[in-house]
């Protein structure tokens, strides 16, 4: 279902930046330049931003204002980027974060720090 609000009864037509292309876990997506990465991901229907270090549990957007840090992902190779307050740019490479890395836990070798 469409998550983007096209016209709002109070705010009117929603103004957007130019359309940019980025990837999330290799999947090509589009969003609007300058909107938070999390907004573009939400519009694409993506809910899980990361899996936690200890319990490997899914997390997504929680506070949406950069405080709770639950929505962090690996962006352009850097871990722990708060996607709810980081503006989207053309060509960004966004990856689901597993613990503090990009390697899914089930693909890690036995005995490695998980």
């Amino acid at each position: 279902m469409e998550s983007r609000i096209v016209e709002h009864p109070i705010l009117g037509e929603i103004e957007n930046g130019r359309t940019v292309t980025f990837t999330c876990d290799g999947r090509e997506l589009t969003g609007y330049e300058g909107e938070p990465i999390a907004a573009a991901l939400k519009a694409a229907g993506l809910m899980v931003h990361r899996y936690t270090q200890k319990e490997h549990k899914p997390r997504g957007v929680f506070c949406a204002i950069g405080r709770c840090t639950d929505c962090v992902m690996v962006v352009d190779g850097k871990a722990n980027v708060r996607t709810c307050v980081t503006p989207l740019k053309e060509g960004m490479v966004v990856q689901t974060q597993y613990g503090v890395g990009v390697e899914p836990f089930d693909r890690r070798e036995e005995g490695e720090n998980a």
Partner: protein
Amino acid sequence: MSNVIDRSREIGPYIPAPDDDRIICRCEEVTQGEIRRAVHEGMWTMTEIRRYLRTGMGLCQGQTCGKLVKGIVARELGVPMAALEPATSRVPMRPIEMRVFANEAKEGGEHE
């Protein structure tokens, strides 16, 4: 101004609760049961709990769990929440890259 607190005061035994596995500190994944047990092991202040379990020491620095942890500790000790000191606040208010923190602007830092 300090309160004299005898850490040998009887607070009763730790009784496991069905929701003890619930995550309280989202960043460091500390559960309610861990917090409750720590109180019974003698960690009676927010500071001691934090140092012992890492609650509020993660990326968000306790902005989400502070009040929740306080509620649990207060209940376990049988004291009002206001009797416990608040979680410590420390610089930086938001995580900051080392290279940025290291980069002090010259004289007031004029930006445009």
